[in-house]
């Protein structure tokens, strides 16, 4: 998922009795699966948590364009170059769409982006890993967009109307990205030479664990899950989502003829799920804290774009002001 650690500000859940009449009416609406719309009353914590979650999601879409850009200029043929650029454009569109959903909550896009650039707000840890080969364009589509979908399909039923509608629209495109990514890998495994096949396996080895980390910490280490679930901002826990992702991905991995870098990965007949090894949580928190291989690069790139573009944005507003004046005078 693209929002891995979202603080709700709540230490524990309030009971209906402890709530103010407004709060209680709000919670009852949520319990009855009635969507909350921008004009409706909502608790401050709900509003702030949603802003955090949606902004993290939006930032992830935007920062997520960077690893793919790293191979856009080296895409091997017309078809792949067009596909990859179209995908990157989709992600930018998702970012813009999510920022608008976030602005319905009274947040300001520029302010939230400034928080991203100052390091106060995060984006998904996955985008702090480098894209080192063309196969990564396949793996990112398949595993990264794939993991994002598992989360976002559930979020289509989230309680906040604009967010839910954004998820419905975005999910369609993400599924397309996932199939396209998988196809890149499948073509390399089916029609590629030995070097290309090795490239695919190497790429999966590097992205497997970081993709699993996208779902965030264990439920036992996620103090905010209960409140987010009660508000239906979150609809399934981190561990359940991760399990669902693994269960649907392993057969695809086998069909590719590749393996996962996890000796403990095996089908558990009794549970009806795949068992898998423990995530390296130290690595996860290191990356979240800013020490992943690409954290500095990614933020520097985004910051630089906005800083170096300031004279352009100033010129655009100056020009617009002049035009307005001219029109008023005319």
């Amino acid at each position, binding site marked *: 998922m693209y929002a891995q650690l979202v603080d709700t500000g709540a230490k524990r859940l309030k009971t209906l009795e402890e709530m103010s009449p407004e709060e209680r009416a709000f919670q009852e609406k949520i319990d009855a699966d009635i969507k909350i719309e921008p004009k409706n009353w909502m608790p401050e914590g709900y509003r702030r948590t949603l802003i955090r979650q949606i902004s993290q999601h939006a930032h992830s879409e935007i920062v997520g*364009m*960077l690893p793919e850009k790293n191979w856009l200029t080296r*895409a091997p043929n017309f078809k792949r170059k067009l596909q990859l650029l179209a995908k990157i454009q989709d992600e*930018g569109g998702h970012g813009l769409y999510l920022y608008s959903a976030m602005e319905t909550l009274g947040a300001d896009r520029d302010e939230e982006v400034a928080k991203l650039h100052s390091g106060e707000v995060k984006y998904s840890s996955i985008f702090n890993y480098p894209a080192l080969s063309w196969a990564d364009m396949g793996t990112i589509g398949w595993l990264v967009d794939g993991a994002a979908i598992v989360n976002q399909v559930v979020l289509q039923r989230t309680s906040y109307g604009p967010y839910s509608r954004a998820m419905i629209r975005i999910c369609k495109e993400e599924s397309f990205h996932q199939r396209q990514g998988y196809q890149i890998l499948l*073509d390399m495994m089916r029609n590629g030479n030995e070097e290309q096949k090795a490239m695919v396996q190497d790429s999966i080895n590097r992205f497997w664990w970081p993709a699993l980390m996208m779902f965030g910490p264990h439920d036992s280490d996620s103090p905010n899950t209960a409140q987010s679930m009660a508000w239906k901002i979150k609809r399934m826990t981190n561990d359940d989502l991760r399990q669902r992702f693994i269960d649907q991905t392993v057969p695809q991995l086998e069909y590719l003829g590749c393996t996962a870098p996890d000796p403990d990965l095996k089908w558990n007949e009794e549970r009806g799920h795949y068992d898998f090894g423990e995530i390296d949580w130290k690595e996860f928190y290191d990356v979240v804290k800013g020490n992943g291989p690409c954290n500095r690069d990614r933020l520097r790139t985004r910051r630089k774009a906005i800083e170096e573009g300031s004279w352009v944005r*100033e010129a655009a507003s100056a020009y617009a002001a002049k035009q307005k004046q001219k029109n008023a005078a005319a």
Partner: protein
Amino acid sequence: MNQNQALFEYLLRLGDSDMVLAQRLCELVGKAPALEEEMAIGNVALDLIGQARSWLEYAAELEDAGRSADDLAFTRDERAYRNLLLVEQDNGNFADTMARQFLFDLWHYHLLSALSQSSDERIVAIAAKGLKEVTYHLRRSGNWIKRLGDGTEESHAKMQEAIDEIWTYAGEMFIADEVDSLLADAGIAPDLNALQQKWQSDLTTTLEEATLACPPMDAFMQTGSKQGMHTEQLGYLLAEMQFLPRSFPGASW
């Protein structure tokens, strides 16, 4: 040179200019001054890659030598590339990017308008489709010339400098060689003098509106792309763009 050879050459010029400019625009992902602008740049690049593909597919069929459009774009060497010198120039700052884009779009627009009347039906089809896209490209880059030219003092200075700097690469597109004359005579491609007049007149109008000075039309103009003589910048661009097909000859992706 017979007409088919001339046409092949001409299609390479069209396709290569689109492709090389698109590659420059691809370099800008993550670097635009605003997200909306980044999306617009990406859309222009998508259009240009699509157009390059159509021109080079036609070129490959005409050549009939077993080379595909992909082969033409992703394995041909620098000296065999036929794009305008203008489009291979570095992105520079946003004013440089827009100056290059506008001078190209304006030419591209009038060129495709003329090619929509070509005696070659395949060219008409590609040009007519492209013209719709390029009409939008031109409106957008023209707007930026005005915004930056008539924006702030800083943006005005940057925009003027950008136009002055790139100007020497703008004349080449109107200098006809044997290929141009042969195809113009056959009604396949337009007369470049007529094209230049339209370009010049639109350019003057936009620059005036943008409060920018138009550099002299009789300034010294660099040439060479029609013979595959490029600036030093193209080699690096192609090295990056062609990396995979050249590193793994014969591999399919």
